[in-house]
């Protein structure tokens, strides 16, 4: 956990006071809606279809049990008793009243949580691997770097009015769980030939209407230089990024129009002038931040305790254990994913009661720590294996132990037309219907790893481009239609999926997905050839043929 200090707390208090003043001026008419808009956006407040929505940041996906309880409190007191975890390690409350917002923010600030820069054309909540600090084989704990970046980017005086939003993600593993290649800046911690730890810097990734996979701009940047190098990228972008067309304003378009080599030269020129300035990071600063991350006092434990062996005799536990528990870097411990994807439920939603209960379980079994992943599930990063059977029973009772993590019913979906003012089509009911078609977990297990991503419009909040199967809602003559792509992925081998054919109407989407899955089952070489590998081997044709055969 990161322990917030007096500085962090003071800043949040000052921010709440400022926002209270801004809301007061809006309610009195002193501020027009247009003037208020970017102020509220900087605090994560959107005006949605039915109400104001508050988006709260969960920096690098880490929550304490105390913070989780406060999210439950906000859901209960100011909202309708639930919240929605998003693809960017945020949580959204959909029904908050404008006049209540300052109080809700003050309550959140009391535990170090806020909505600062979860929206607007600024540097957004910095995200990372939800298994950070717990996964085996990490170069370093990427949260330390996400925290350095959080502080660096919070209320940045130069970069709070960029051409467009700006997202940074960090990974420290070979297996990229932070989807860094679809971010404006992706940072990959690694060691260079001399054994020194530093960053590969990628730039210009992003989805939306023009998807791009990020390109490497510099293969190795030292820890000392990482902030100055990022500042150089941002400064070039702030000055030269397009501001004439909102759809061409992301850095990916600038990188594409200039070409990565020329863009890199511009950044290099700028960086040479600032790299030895006061932003250069010295070890003392890094150590100070590192010192405020606390880790559990690990016991010396066996990986195969009797409690676990006994538990595994129960098939339901065994299915969950195999699906939702992954190895921890310390023997005797596991990383547990809590599925927020119940069959027939809206992906990523949790009720206030669930949040409270999860906080209690985190205290009891997981050192009080909870994580949020971009797949819209929660995670206990550290649980002793002997506690797993007991924990499973409790999670199952809460409805967050569906053994479908990474399977076909573990669908990522944006809020879509049920909530969002930008959407063209519904996303949640499409997800719900697909999960019903694949409600049998044994079948889902047989199908294996398969990520379905659904977006209700071209803005791609559901990351449909990088779903193994991607579903994009579009509107045609006032009706909802859906384009289906296959073969996308968001990890270290990130690639944008390929469209299989014309858009299909709302009531045919689940049929098409079933056709695609059946085609895969027929054509895969072996049971362990993953869906994406079969698509890569065969291309889209066989899938297209089957999906459109019955018209």
């Amino acid at each position: 956990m990161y322990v917030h200090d007096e500085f962090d707390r003071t800043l949040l208090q000052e921010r709440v006071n400022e926002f209270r003043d801004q809301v007061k001026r809006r309610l009195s008419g002193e501020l027009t809606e247009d003037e208020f808009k970017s102020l509220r956006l900087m605090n994560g407040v959107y005006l949605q279809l039915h109400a104001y929505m508050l988006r709260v940041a969960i920096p690098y996906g880490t929550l304490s049990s105390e913070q989780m309880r406060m999210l439950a409190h906000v859901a209960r007191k100011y909202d309708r008793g639930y919240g929605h975890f998003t693809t960017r390690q945020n949580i959204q409350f959909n029904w908050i009243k404008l006049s209540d917002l300052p109080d809700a923010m003050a309550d959140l600030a009391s535990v170090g949580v806020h909505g600062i820069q979860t929206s607007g054309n600024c540097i957004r909540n910095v995200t990372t691997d939800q298994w950070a600090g717990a996964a085996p084989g990490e170069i370093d704990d990427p949260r330390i770097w996400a925290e350095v970046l959080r502080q660096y980017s919070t209320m940045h005086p130069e970069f709070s009015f960029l051409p467009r939003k700006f997202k940074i993600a960090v990974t420290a593993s070979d297996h990229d769980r932070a989807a860094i290649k679809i971010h404006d800046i992706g940072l990959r911690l690694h060691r260079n030939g001399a054994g020194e730890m530093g960053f590969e810097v990628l730039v210009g990734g992003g989805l939306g209407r023009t998807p791009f996979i990020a390109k490497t701009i510099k293969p190795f940047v030292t820890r000392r230089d990482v902030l100055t190098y990022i500042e150089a990228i941002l400064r070039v972008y702030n000055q030269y990024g397009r501001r004439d067309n909102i759809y061409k304003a992301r850095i990916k378009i600038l990188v594409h129009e200039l070409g990565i080599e020329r863009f890199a030269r511009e950044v290099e020129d700028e960086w040479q002038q600032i790299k030895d300035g006061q932003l250069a990071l010295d070890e003392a600063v890094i150590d100070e931040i590192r010192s405020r991350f606390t880790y559990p006092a690990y016991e010396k434990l066996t990986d195969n305790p009797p409690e676990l062996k006994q538990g595994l005799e129960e098939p339901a536990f065994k299915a969950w254990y195999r699906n939702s528990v992954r190895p921890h870097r310390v023997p005797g411990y596991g990383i547990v994913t809590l599925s927020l994807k119940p069959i027939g439920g809206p992906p990523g939603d949790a009720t206030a009661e669930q949040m409270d209960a999860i906080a209690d379980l985190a205290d009891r079994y997981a050192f009080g720590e909870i994580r949020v992943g971009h797949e819209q599930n929660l995670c206990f990063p550290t649980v002793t294996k002997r506690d797993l059977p007991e924990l499973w029973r409790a999670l199952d009772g809460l409805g967050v132990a569906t053994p479908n993590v990474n399977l076909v019913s573990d669908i990522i979906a944006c809020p879509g037309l049920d909530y969002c003012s930008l959407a063209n089509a519904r996303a949640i009911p499409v997800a719900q219907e697909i999960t019903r078609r694949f409600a049998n977990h044994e079948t889902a297990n047989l199908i294996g790893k398969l990520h379905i991503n659904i977006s209700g419009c071209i803005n791609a909040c559901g990351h449909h481009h990088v779903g193994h199967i991607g579903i994009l809602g579009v509107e045609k003559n006032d009706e909802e239609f859906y384009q289906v792509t296959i073969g996308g992925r968001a990890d270290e081998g990130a690639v944008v999926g390929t469209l299989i054919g014309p858009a299909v109407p709302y009531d045919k989407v689940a049929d098409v997905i079933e056709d695609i899955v059946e085609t895969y089952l027929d054509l895969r070489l072996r049971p362990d050839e993953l869906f994406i590998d079969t698509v890569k081997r065969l291309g889209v044709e066989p899938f297209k043929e089957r999906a459109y055969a019955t018209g």
Partner: protein
Amino acid sequence: MPLVKNTEVVSDRYIRILDDAPIPASGAVLVPAERFLADAAEFAARNAETGVIWPNNQDIDKLAPHLDKLALVALVFPKYQDGRAYSQARILRERHGYRGELRATGAVLRDQFVFMLRAGFDSFEVKKDADARAFGSVSKRYSVFYQPTGDGRLTAFRKRLQVSAAPGRELHSASR
């Protein structure tokens, strides 16, 4: 539009000459970039202060050779959401060492004051009277700053190191 300097509303000494009208022999003038660059030598020869309005889409480095002859640089925020002039301001102050007046013009609203001060602006053509009057209190809204800029304020990073180097000191006194 009220002009704020040192947290006070003051009158503007500069006369804006936005057309081809002749430049008066005396008195402070503020002219657009093209005019200034075209007649730079003439302006330098004057016995009065010259200011330039520099648009946010022109490379600020072009102004570097002229900075010692300029008493005022006015940067422009065509919309408050257009933040290019923040970069220009920092480059002028931190790279080119410009010490003259740096004025924010255009869509200047109270919620930008802190950002502008941190970027190096020291005068402000504020859009609304109420915002201009509130300048003093609004500019003191924040006491914690995470990023180093040319304004010399200590960052939270540095303050923490000072605190940990001086264990007897109370934490909250350092954050004030």
